[in-house]
């Protein structure tokens, strides 16, 4: 399962975000103590803090890594109404192996707390989306990837609702797309997740969908890595965890030119209320097959789809690293066996047999 390794984070206030870099060998943490720490994975498997510096004059809500192609770059956003881009000075390190990070830019357009910051997927170049508590999503771009100090504000999207989180759609074959979640507490205010898409013709971002089923305040939102999928999976953390699939409906080529935005077939593929409390954060694994969620119950739950596309809990972790105690352990264990793909018993491979449907298209699968 998992081996817990405690990290002496030693932040002086709450840690609000943890982010791994592209290769998973560096980690950044940010805290209300206005500092960001960068941790590097040593050869011995230990994480050591290689940088710790004051980034903002308010709580740092989120930290995120840029694609390493752009260098060792992180972006932070803060209660102090700014977002900042930081770059590590390569080759320079002080005694004790501490690395130097320098502020490349400070994005000061927001009038309220900047609640999330996310780099665009690499194929869109060096772009940065921020969202703020007053409901404005801003898209910045560094036209010259070699010059991280010059960012121009490309778009401002007004979402009407106070924004708490943002997520880029990682797919490279679809139009650039952003999902925005709102922590607006009023359930009658309508859907709290909005999907915006960039239109090449109008050169504008426009709203393509509002996910109306989510009316509670949304704390986190994450697109799953797309890989080869023809649809998008969107994880939403609210009072419960939801997974929404967005399948782009094919449009004929002619209409693409003239009419506006894509249409989607929205489907809620899963909804879990096992946390039984506010769910704060979500994270997908790299293949988009396992979703981790964590909430006020102090637990992390891992969700995975089985062969029938039913999402099931495969694991529950305690937030303090004390090991996994499952109330529903037996059931989950069983689930795991079926899902691990490694089971040597008959039933699980039978399930897998069914999955090879393209090869056995007609007739009944042999084991039924």
């Amino acid at each position, binding site marked *: 399962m998992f081996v*817990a*390794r405690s990290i002496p984070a030693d932040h002086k206030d709450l840690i609000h975000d*943890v982010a791994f870099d592209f290769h998973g060998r560096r980690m950044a943490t940010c805290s209300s103590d206005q500092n960001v720490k960068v941790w590097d994975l040593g050869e011995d498997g230990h994480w050591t803090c290689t940088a710790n510096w004051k980034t903002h*004059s308010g709580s740092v809500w989120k930290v995120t890594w840029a694609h390493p192609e752009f260098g060792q770059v992180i972006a932070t956003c803060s209660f102090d109404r700014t977002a900042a881009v930081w770059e590590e000075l390569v080759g320079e390190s002080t005694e004790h192996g501490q690395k130097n990070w320098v502020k490349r830019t400070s994005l000061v357009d927001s009038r309220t707390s900047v609640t999330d910051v996310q780099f665009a997927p690499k194929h869109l170049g060096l772009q940065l989306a921020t969202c703020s508590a007053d409901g404005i999503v801003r898209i910045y771009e560094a036209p010259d990837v070699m010059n991280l100090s010059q960012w121009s504000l490309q778009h401002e999207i007004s979402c009407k609702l106070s924004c708490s989180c943002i997520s880029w759609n990682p797919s490279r074959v679809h139009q650039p797309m952003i999902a925005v979640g709102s922590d607006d507490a009023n359930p009658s205010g309508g859907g709290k997740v909005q999907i915006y898409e960039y239109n090449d013709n109008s050169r504008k971002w426009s709203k393509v969908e509002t996910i109306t089923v989510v009316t509670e305040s949304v704390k986190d939102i994450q697109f799953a890595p797309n890989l080869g999928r023809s649809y998008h999976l969107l994880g939403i953390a609210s009072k419960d965890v939801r997974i929404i699939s967005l399948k782009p409906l094919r449009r004929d080529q002619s209409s693409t030119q003239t009419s506006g935005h894509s249409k989607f077939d929205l489907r809620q593929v899963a909804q879990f209320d096992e946390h039984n409390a506010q769910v704060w954060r979500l994270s997908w694994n790299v293949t988009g097959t396992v979703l981790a969620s964590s909430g006020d119950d102090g637990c*992390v739950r891992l969700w995975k789809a089985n062969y029938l596309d039913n999402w099931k809990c495969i694991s529950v972790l305690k*937030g303090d690293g004390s090991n996994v105690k499952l109330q529903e352990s037996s059931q989950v264990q069983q689930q795991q066996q079926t899902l691990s*793909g490694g089971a040597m018993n*008959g039933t699980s491979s039978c399930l897998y047999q069914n999955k090879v449907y393209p*090869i056995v298209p007609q007739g009944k699968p042999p084991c039924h």
Partner: protein
Amino acid sequence: MHTVIEAPINAISTNKDASQVVVAGRNVFRVFSIEDDAFVERCNLRVGKNLNLNFSAADVTWNPVEDHLLASAATNGAVVTWNLNKPSRSKQELVFNEHKRTVNRVCFHSTEANLLLSGSQDGFMKLFDLRKKEVNCTFSGQSESVRDVQFCPHHYFQFAAAYENGNLQLWDLRRPDKWEKMFTAHSGPAFTLDWHPDDKNWIASAGRDRSIKIWEISHKPRLLHTVQTIASVARVKWRPSRKYHISSCSLLVDHNVNVWDIRRPYIPFASFEEHRDVVTGIMWKNDPYVFLSGSKDCTVYQHMFKDAVRPADRANPIGIDTNVNGDLGLAFSDKLLVAGKSQTGSSMLPHFFRSKGPDRSEQFTMASSSAVIFESVDKSTGLEWFIECATRYQLSGKSVEDLCDHNAAVAGSLNKHQVAQTWRILKLLYGGNTATPCPPRTVSVIGSPAVGEAHKAESEKVNLKQQLDGHLVQDHNRSTHTDGENKDTGDTSTAVSEDESDAESSLSLTNIASGQVNQQGDFFFGDGELETFDYPVTMANMDSMQDWTLPTEAIPLRHEIQDRLDSPDPLQNATDSPSSANESEFSSQAFGNAENATPMYNLQAIPFASQNPPWEFSHLVCDMLEYFAEQGDVQTSVSVLIILGNKMKTPVEDQKQEQWFMAYLELLTRFRLWGIANEVIKLSSHRAVASLNQQSTTVHTNCNKCFKPLTRAGWLCDRCKALTSTCSICHLPVKGLFAWCQGCSHGGHLEHLREWLMTHKHCPTGCGHICEYT
């Protein structure tokens, strides 16, 4: 509760019992009484014939002793007192024009009603005696402009001043010549200070450096706490009867009134967000739950503490992220963990957890988080298999069936049975098509007529097929049982029973599969060679039907084995001896997944089944690849695409292929498998993908004489018609390694330089530099 006034407010002040408030600004000067639900105007001080600057105020203060006395500071340097008891319409009483510049602050003595202190931009502070109507004494800080002066509420003679250069001074009224203490409090101008209402040694100051600092001033001033805010701080005021709470408002940017707990200086304890412009004055109503604020937005608000926004409650207490290996990075608020603990009734509490009282409204102690990394050691969440597959898959250099076999074995060994099965099926589908120049082909000439005969004979009698199938399975049963080497009897029996039940249902399957027979002339041999774990079935059949085929069958197998001696695959080794193929290794591998194996028997039956029209399966393969991609397994899709290449009759959509390739490449780079990523790019038949490793492959060089880019070869400059990068010793262009001294940047052939520097110390060019060769 609020009231709107016609002009921006510069300052507010309340009377002794906080029942009235005076509101002053450039164009406003009014007194309101504070009723239960409204502000009621008592008096307008800005009346008279000539409203000069004396009627405008930068600051205002109410006498804490005499309820009818007010003082205001004007921007023209005048200090004005007002007497509300004056019968006339104008309440203006005294005007002191002592200061040369703006007066920033006026302050009454806390107990002596007639003492008024002012601090001005001109750098002086003056103490006025209202009875004598004159300046009692003048204090010169000998610093810069005075931004704030405040009498100490605990000490009759003491007052403090804040200066624009960031200094704080403590004064004694009895010593007007020199300050008692002075220290630098802020890195920019200090705008405000406030004495702690209870602790007489505490003083708070704040300034443009956006920080609020709490000082202990009993001996040597000592910094106790720093609160970092997001904007320059204009005013600070301690919250009454709360030792650690202080309210602040900003000079710009931030329109909120924030109340901080100095012990947790990062997040405001409470925020009041009503104002639309910067707040200029805060007055607590002698009550920790109510205060008034005036703002540039022309409003005065009375705030109740229960209406406050609690930013800490909105702050996200959890951070989580998954890295490429499936490890979870996690940061949890300790508070949550404690809560979670008590919920689940777990006993052990780590020592650093402190339980916290339930009274949310006043509880605001330090919060902290613990960070944990959950390292994934589990197959269901980890991605070891991905790396293993990526590194061990063979994508080129062999025939399709070899590659499929190898990859099937790899996938099988990693417990990816579905993928392994897919490879095997692909081998069946495509293996025969490859014109592999392997030895079996020659044998197939011998074998195929016999098979062909068998086929013909069978195709005439359709019922025979079913019999044959049954026969086949029985044969298989017999072979497995008689051999008796199968250790995994449980599995075998299920396999067998499945087989038997399949005998009926296999009709469709055989039909499907039989299509291949027609496509591939020597399918039988292609199959026999490769389907190792089907082998016994084949053998059994052969035995029962045509004894003479066995030797010919054995030959190609031997060849195959020799071919693949280097293969690490245990399955292959299992076929070492055809007669005892059903040995333990075989059974565990092949029969371990009885169901997996089952269709293979059915497929195996193909050669003996009836002839049917050609079966077009390409689109099914497409579907299958798409299925894998939809499941998030682009690895399989891409690997299959590469191996099959253009053999697929109905190719996958171009865009989709690119999407898969790009996704797979990104995954590979995430795992830092650059070599494999490059191989995938190289093997890709997709144009956009294949061109990926032709990007950024140009190295531009400049001539070392004219510093212009070299256009053609790297050693001749077209512009200055000279050789570039010549060796300093032989003066010929260096085409291999150019060794150069980092000190003088001269160099040349490595060999030449080495020789030169063996005997000389100086640079061969004569530049005088003493080069070092290491």
